[in-house]
């Protein structure tokens, strides 16, 4: 096999890791609260900017900046729920979607106000590793490892803890969880915080590899949505797998053509799958 193709495939897998984390977050929130945060990718952008600001402007150590960013985006997640979602939980779901659309506008333009439209970079240059002729960015490798670790941690949280089990339960039958002593609103807040934290984690991983600018959310946001719909909205495992499928399409498509065209392929694949499996690849 062509070594550059292999390289592209591996890079695709590594990229898939971060996308998978975001898909998990979005699916978690949708599965529990039944709402899609259109502005999810922009929360990641907020995290990236915070890391940039703390690390580059204030000279904080990178790891600390990342930790703070995760907490910060988790808090943002809670704010989004409390200020935007909770007041309209009763109205049509499309309203909640649109309200987060307003948030998207707001976040992107506010970031433009604060930072301008330039691309910002934290200037971290991690070495490129060579593995038998294949060149892989260690930043990517690290991001992948952390993403998988995050996913595993989430898995155990959901499987083993009481709150995690309550989260899984509420996604299956919202109305009667109260009978088990579960406070619905509390679970919503926890879920929003976790969703935010996952976005914060993704921010840490992305800032290592990419520049941040106010509209970076538009580059991977729609991709994440496609991934989630492909895997079945709310299906955590489906989204996880779909993330890798899509990232492979993009990596291989990008290898043979251009990055933008690879997105077109991904979308075409997505539409075709809509014909075949409208509820997601793994719908029962």
């Amino acid at each position, binding site marked *: 096999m062509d070594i550059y193709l292999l390289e592209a495939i591996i890079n695709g897998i590594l990229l898939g890791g971060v996308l998978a984390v975001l898909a998990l977050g979005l699916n978690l929130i949708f599965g529990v609260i039944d709402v899609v945060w259109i502005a999810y990718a922009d929360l990641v952008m907020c995290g990236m900017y915070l890391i940039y600001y703390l690390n580059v402007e204030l000279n904080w150590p990178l790891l600390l900046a990342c930790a703070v960013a995760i907490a910060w985006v988790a808090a943002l997640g809670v704010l989004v729920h409390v200020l935007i979602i909770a007041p309209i939980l009763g109205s049509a779901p499309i*309203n909640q979607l*649109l309200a987060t659309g307003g948030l998207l*506008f707001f976040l992107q333009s*506010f970031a433009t*106000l604060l930072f301008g439209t330039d691309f910002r970079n934290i200037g971290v240059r991690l070495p490129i590793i060579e593995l038998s002729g294949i060149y892989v960015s260690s930043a990517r490798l690290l991001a992948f490892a952390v993403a998988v670790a995050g996913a595993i941690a989430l898995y155990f949280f959901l499987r083993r803890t009481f709150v995690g089990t309550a989260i899984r339960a509420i996604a299956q039958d919202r109305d009667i969880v109260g009978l088990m002593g579960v406070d619905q609103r509390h679970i919503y807040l926890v879920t929003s915080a976790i969703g935010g934290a996952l976005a914060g984690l993704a921010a840490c991983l992305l800032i290592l590899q990419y520049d941040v600018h106010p509209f970076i959310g538009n580059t991977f946001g729609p991709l994440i949505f496609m991934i989630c719909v492909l895997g079945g909205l709310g299906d955590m495992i489906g989204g996880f797998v779909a993330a890798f499928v899509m990232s492979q399409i993009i990596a291989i498509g990008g290898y043979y053509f251009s990055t933008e*065209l690879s*997105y077109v392929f991904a979308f075409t694949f997505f539409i075709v799958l809509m014909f075949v499996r409208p509820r997601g690849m793994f719908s029962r």
Partner: protein
Amino acid sequence: MIAGLAVALLALPNFVAPYFMHLLIQILLWGFVYTSWSIMGRFGFVSLGHGAFMGIGAYVPALLWNYAGLTPWIGIPVGIGFAVLLALIVGYPCFRLKVVGHYFALVTLALSQVVMLSIVAARDVTGGSLGFTPKAVGHSWYALQFPEKVYFYGISLALWFGGLAVWYWIDCGIGREALDAISEDEEAAGSVGINVIREKLRVTLISAALTALGGAIYGQYMMYLNPETVSGIAVSLQIVFAAIVGGTYAAVGPTVGALLTISLNEGLRVAFGTNFIGAANTIYGILLVLFIIFMPRGIVGMIQDAMKGSRRGKAVFYSAIRRPSSADQ
């Protein structure tokens, strides 16, 4: 009253400075685009991807003009054709397979982004993010280019009226009840014999076609196209924002939304210059959230509700703005 308004609008160019003409044309064109969206949006078929249709509608005639010398009189219908085709390709499976609500919104969102990315990807042809300028030939009906604003004022006015006419045509047509039924309960509607797919597709294709037309004329007027301004998420959301804030339940609602967005843009530009790029959208964002929470029926809807209290106001206002229907709350 409508006749009086029409006369006033037609006579306007004689009294108004070019700068205000420019604003007016923008309001009319964007109002037309927003109205086109709301033709399907008002029934709950919320598309977050109309930027795709606008972009296609704008770029296709411009590309054909520059590269093939093809007159926009043919180029525009071709562009509309492409937009409609795309709407069909994406819409049919969605409707056939009951992709609705969230799913539909996300699919359309991805669509608009992909169209924008395609435009950028084909940068050798389209100029990518740097934008595209149609070859200027001065005053020409063949090229549909008119340096004097009056002509485009007339065109956009006609378009705007046309959009309202289509809105009313759907509002008063037999299809209207079917669409209301579908938006309330798709399955129930299907079970009473309504051809859900056909109705949804019909209104979607009309909406896509009109949006593409709006994009085309916008491109011809501005004589400059940029993927960010005529396609992509931002435009799609802007369309939704304006339509909702203005109010989708009344024909002029989206136009009120256009009034708001254009004035806001201009106001901010005049007040702050380029110091605060992004200020307008920041405010849009906050407003959209606030409107969804507190005034989901939009400005016009709110006025309508307020008017319901006053009988005289009701008679005058309603007859001018919309025809009451059984869907009135």
